[in-house]
C-alpha cells in the first residue's frame, strides 16, 4: 500500500486537467511565450494615458455622459455640450445632475464612492496592472482612501512593479492561492488605442447599446425559429409508472444484448437513456411499440466510426506531448482522421483512463531522460523505445485507480463487492509482506494486476468512443504487468514476447516457462498457482514447488487470461472490439487473484 499511497498523493487533484508534469510542460512553454510577447509590446501603452486619466479622474456621472457625447475628449465642463447620437442632449444633461443629487440623497458616502467609481477604477485599469499587482493592489488600496491618494499609490505600484502594460483579463483573476496560476496568469497586450476605448465604464452610444425595436411584434403562423430544432423528449404525455417500466425494460434489454463494458449493470437506479426516450417519443409514447422497435433495431454497441484505433490513440498521445492541449494542432499534424471536436471528446474520456496514467508516468520519466539524451527529439521514437525497453528501473507504479471509490460504486452487487474486498486484501498483502528491494518488480506485478481491473473500471466509465481506449489501456497494463513482473529476470532476452511491444499474456506465460532462472520459474509457478487459485483457492501451499502440474495450470491461466482479455497485442488492436472486456468481472477477478498469489508466494 505504501507505494500506492505515494503515487496517489503525488497524483494530481483529479479535477485538474492534467498530470502535473504534463501540465507544467505545456503551460510553462505557453506562459513564457505570452510573457515575452507582453514585454515586447508593453512600453507605450500607459504614458500619455495618465494625463487624460487624471483629468477624467474626478468625474463621476459626468464622465459617463461626456463619453456619450464626445469620445476621448472628456473634460470636466463637458456636461451639456456635444451631440448625443440619438437622444436630446438637454435632457441628458439635466438627467445627469438630477441623478447626482438623487444619489447623494440616497447614500451618505456618495462622494467617496463616486470618485472611486470613476477615478479608481479607470486609473487602475488603465495602468494595466496584472495579476500579481492585483494582489498587491488589494493590500495597498483599501476602498475608502480618497482618490488622490490612490493615484499616488498607483504610481508607487507602477514603480515597484517592473512590467506594466498588460491589461486586465478575466482569466487573470485567479485566486491568490489557486494552483492553476501557471496558466491563468497569461495576460494580453492591448494596443494603446484599445486601452483608451476600454475604459472600465459602461459606454453609451450607438456602438454600444442594443437597438430595441419599438413595440411588440408577433410571430406569424410559422414561428421563426421552430424549424430547425428537434424535440428529443416530451414528458407530458405519459404517466411516470409506465415510463419507469419502459426504462427498466430497456435497460434489461440492453443489458442482455450488450457486449463488453456495457454489460456491466450500473446499479438499481433507473437512469435516463436519451436514445430510448427519443425512440419512445417517435413512437408516440407507445411503450410497447418502442420496445418492439428497439428489439428490431440492431443496436450496435457503439458506432464503429467512433472507436479509436490504437494508431490514433498513440498519435493522439504523441500530439498531446508535442502540442499540449492544442487540439487543433494535434488534429492538423497528428490525427487527421478525427475532427477537433472528436479529439476534445476523446481527451476528456482519455484523461480519466488508465491510459492517461501511463502517459503521465511516461511523461515524467521522459522529462528526466531528456537531460540524458538531449539530442533525441523524436518523442514518438522515445515513446516507442520506452515501451520496448521494458525494464525501467524504479518505474513508477501507475496510479491505482481500482482503489478509488469509483470501482466500489460501480461494482455494486455482492459478487463484485467481494472483488473489491479482495482487492483491499491484496493491497495489504503487497504493502505488508513484500520487502522493498527484491520485491519491487513483484510489487509491480501486484500493482498492475490491480491496475488491470482499474482499466476495466475505466472501461465501465466509457461509452462508445472510449471503449477501444479502455480496451487498449487494459492491454497496455496487461502487457506491462507481465513485463514488470518479469522485469528483474534479465534472462528474458530469449523471450520475444516481452521484448515485443504487443506481447500478449499468453506469450508472457510461455516466456516465463522458457526462462531458466529460478526466480523466473518461481514467478511463473506462482502465476500458475494464482490462476489455479482462482478456481481452487485453498491450493496456495503447493505454490513454492515448481512441478509439472503447476506449469500446466500456468499455461491454462495464460489461456484463461487470454480469453478474458482477448487482446492480441497493443499494436494490432485495430478499431476493434467493444467486446474486448467482455467478461470483465471475470478478468478482474482472475487477474486479481493472479496478482495476489504471486505476491503471496514471493513473500514466502
Amino acid at each position: 500500500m505504501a507505494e500506492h499511497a505515494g503515487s496517489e498523493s503525488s497524483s494530481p487533484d483529479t479535477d485538474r486537467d492534467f498530470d502535473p508534469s504534463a501540465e507544467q510542460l505545456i503551460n510553462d512553454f505557453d506562459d513564457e511565450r505570452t510573457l515575452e510577447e507582453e514585454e515586447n509590446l508593453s512600453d507605450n501603452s500607459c504614458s500619455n494615458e495618465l494625463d487624460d486619466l487624471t483629468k477624467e479622474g474626478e468625474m463621476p456621472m459626468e464622465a459617463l455622459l461626456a463619453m456619450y457625447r464626445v469620445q476621448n475628449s472628456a473634460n470636466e465642463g463637458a456636461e451639456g455640450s456635444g451631440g448625443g447620437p440619438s437622444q436630446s442632449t438637454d435632457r441628458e444633461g439635466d438627467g445627469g445632475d438630477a441623478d447626482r443629487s438623487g444619489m447623494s440623497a440616497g447614500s451618505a458616502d456618495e462622494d467617496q464612492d463616486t470618485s472611486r467609481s470613476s477615478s479608481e477604477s479607470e486609473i487602475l485599469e488603465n495602468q494595466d496592472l496584472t495579476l500579481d499587482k492585483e494582489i498587491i493592489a488589494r493590500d495597498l488600496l483599501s476602498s475608502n482612501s480618497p482618490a488622490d491618494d490612490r493615484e499616488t499609490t498607483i504610481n508607487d505600484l507602477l514603480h515597484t512593479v517592473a512590467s506594466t502594460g498588460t491589461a486586465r483579463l478575466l482569466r487573470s483573476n485567479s485566486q491568490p492561492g489557486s494552483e492553476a496560476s501557471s496558466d491563468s496568469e497569461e495576460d494580453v497586450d492591448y494596443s494603446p488605442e484599445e486601452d483608451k476605448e476600454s475604459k472600465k465604464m459602461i459606454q453609451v452610444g450607438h456602438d454600444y447599446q442594443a437597438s430595441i425595436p419599438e413595440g411588440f411584434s408577433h410571430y406569424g403562423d410559422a414561428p421563426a425559429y421552430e424549424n430547425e430544432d428537434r424535440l428529443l423528449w416530451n414528458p407530458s404525455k405519459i404517466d411516470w409508472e409506465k415510463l419507469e417500466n419502459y426504462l427498466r425494460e430497456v435497460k434489461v434489454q440492453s443489458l442482455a444484448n450488450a457486449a463488453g463494458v456495457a454489460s456491466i449493470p450500473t446499479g438499481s437506479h433507473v437512469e435516463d437513456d436519451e436514445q430510448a426516450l427519443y425512440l419512445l417519443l417517435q413512437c408516440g409514447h407507445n411503450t410497447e411499440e418502442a420496445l418492439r422497435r428497439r428489439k428490431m433495431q440492431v443496436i450496435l454497441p457503439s458506432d464503429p466510426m467512433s472507436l479509436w484505433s490504437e494508431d490514433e490513440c498513440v498519435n493522439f498521445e504523441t500530439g498531446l506531448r508535442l502540442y499540449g492541449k492544442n487540439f487543433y494542432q494535434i488534429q492538423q499534424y497528428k490525427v487527421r482522421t478525427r475532427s477537433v471536436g472528436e479529439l476534445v471528446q476523446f481527451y476528456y474520456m482519455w484523461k480519466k483512463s488508465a491510459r492517461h496514467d501511463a502517459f503521465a508516468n511516461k511523461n515524467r520519466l521522459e522529462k528526466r531522460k531528456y537531460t540524458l539524451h538531449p539530442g533525441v527529439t523524436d518523442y514518438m521514437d522515445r515513446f516507442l523505445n520506452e515501451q520496448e525497453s521494458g525494464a525501467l528501473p524504479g518505474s513508477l507504479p501507475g496510479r491505482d485507480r481500482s482503489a478509488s471509490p469509483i470501482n466500489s460504486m460501480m461494482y455494486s452487487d455482492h459478487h463484485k463487492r467481494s472483488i473489491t474486498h479482495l482487492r483491499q486484501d491484496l493491497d495489504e498483502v503487497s504493502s505488508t509482506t513484500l520487502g522493498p528491494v527484491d520485491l519491487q518488480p513483484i510489487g509491480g506485478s501486484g500493482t498492475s494486476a490491480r491496475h488491470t481491473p482499474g482499466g476495466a473500471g475505466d472501461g465501465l466509465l466509457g461509452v462508445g468512443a472510449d471503449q477501444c481506449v479502455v480496451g487498449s489501456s487494459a492491454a497496455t497494463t496487461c502487457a506491462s504487468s507481465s513485463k514488470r513482473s518479469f522485469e528483474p529476470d534479465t534472462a528474458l532476452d530469449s523471450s520475444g514476447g516481452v521484448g515485443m511491444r504487443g506481447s500478449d499474456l499468453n506469450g508472457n506465460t510461455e516466456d516465463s516457462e522458457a526462462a531458466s532462472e529460478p526466480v523466473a520459474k518461481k514467478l511463473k509457478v506462482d502465476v500458475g498457482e494464482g490462476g489455479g487459485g482462482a478456481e481452487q483457492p485453498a491450493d496456495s501451499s503447493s505454490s513454492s514447488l515448481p512441478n509439472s502440474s503447476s506449469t500446466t495450470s500456468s499455461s491454462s491461466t495464460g489461456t484463461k487470461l487470454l480469453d478474458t482479455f482477448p487482446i492480441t497485442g497493443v499494436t494490432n488492436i485495430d478499431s476493434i472490439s467493444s467486446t474486448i472486456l467482455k467478461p470483465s468481472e471475470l478478468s478482474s477477478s482472475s487477474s486479481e487473484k493472479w496478482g495476489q498469489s504471486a505476491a503471496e508466494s514471493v513473500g514466502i
Partner: protein
Amino acid sequence: MSAKSVVYFYDQDVGNFHYGPGHPMKPHRIALTHSLVLHYGLHKKMKVYKPYRATFHDMCRFHSDEYIDFLRRVTPLNVQNYTKSLTHYNVGEDCPVFDGMFDFCSLYTGASLEGAVKLNNEHCDIAVNWSGGLHHAKKFEASGFCYVNDIVIAILELLKYHPRVLYIDIDIHHGDGVQEAFYLTDRVMTVSFHKYGNLFFPGTGDMYEIGADSGRHYSVNVPLKEGIDDESYMSVFKPVISSVIEFYRPTCVVLQCGADSLGGDRLGCFNLSVTGHGECVQVVKDFGLPMLVLGGGGYTKKNVARCWTYETAVLLNEQISNELPYNEYLEYFAPDFSLHPDISTKQENLNTKQYLETIRIATYENLKNLTFAPSVQMHDVPPDLCLENTEEGDPDIRPTDEEMDKRVEPANEFYDGDKDNDKENDGYLDV
C-alpha cells in the same frame, strides 16, 4: 408547489469545443452537467430539445455585422491574416480563436434564442440553456471568454412579447455586456451581483452605475467583496430581488447562473456552496414568472456541473440525492462523488454586515425612484399606442387589468397574484 413546465436545451456537440491550452473556460463542463442531469433521471421530466443554431442574422440583432462577419471568417488557420481585426475586436487572449468558434457561438446563442421563443409562445414556464449566459460580449467586441452575447439576443427576442424583462446575474463577474446593451432603456432592468474592486474583471459594476437616459435607475449593481458565503449572499440577494420585482414588475426573468461565484472556483473568490447558489435560483423561481435560465462563468468544472445539475433539479422541484449516480465522467467527481461536497475555502468573508446593509439600503433607495414615477414607467415602456391592448389580447400570463392594479397596490398583493397564476398553470398543465 406547483410544477412548472421546463424546457431544456442541449446539443451534444457543445461540450466538444476547446478554447486552447491553459484556457480556464471549458465548454466540456456542459457535457459534464448533461451527463449528471441524465443519470439523475432529470432528463425525462423535462421537454428536451436539440436546439436551433443561431444564424449570422440572429447574431447581428445585437452585434455589428462586421464583427460577426469577422467571427465567422476567422479560423486558427487564417488567423494571421486578421491581426488588425483581432486587436480591434479584442479577440486573441481571453477570447482566442479556436477551431469551431463560430459553431460554438451559434450553438449556445441558438439555444438561448429558442428559449426566448418558447417562453414567448408560452410553450414552457422555464427554459434552461446551460451553454448560454455569455454576458461579457459587447456589440463590437468579444470580452471575457464571450464572443456573442446570447443573453442580449434572447432578451431582444423576449421584448417582442414582454414589456419588461428583468435580467439577474449571479456570476461573480459583472454582467457588463448585458448592462451596457440595455443601459438606456427601461424595458430591461439588469441586476448584477458580483465581486467589485481591486481590478477584478471586468472593472465595471460600481453601485452607482444605474443606467442613463430612459434607462436611468434600470441598472442595479450590487458590488461585493471576496469570500462572501451563503448567508451573507442571501441576506442581500433576497431583499434586492424582492424589491426589484416589487418595483419593476417584470413580466419575464432572465437568470444568468454563472457558477464562478461558488467556493473554490479557479477564477473566482466567493465562497458560495452549491446549495447557496441554487437557493438564488429557487428564490427567483418562487416569484413564478416565466424564466430563461442560462449558464455563464464557472471554471472548476466538477463544481459547475454539480451546481447546474442541482439547479436543474431545483427548477423541476425534484429532490436528488447527494450521492452522484453512476455516469461516464464519474471520476471527475472524485474523491467524494457527492453532489454537495464542502467547497468552501479559507477565504475570509470581507463583506461585513454593515457593508451589505449599506448596499441594500442604497439599492432600495435607488429603486424607490421607480415608484416615484410609476406612470412614466408605464407609459414610457410601450411606445406603441396599441401596446396595452396588444398585451391584453396576447396570452400573456398576467392579465393586464390585474397588472395595472398591482402596480399601485402594496407589494404583498403581488404574491397573491402569483399564486393565482400558478393555479392557472396547473390547469394548463393537466390538460
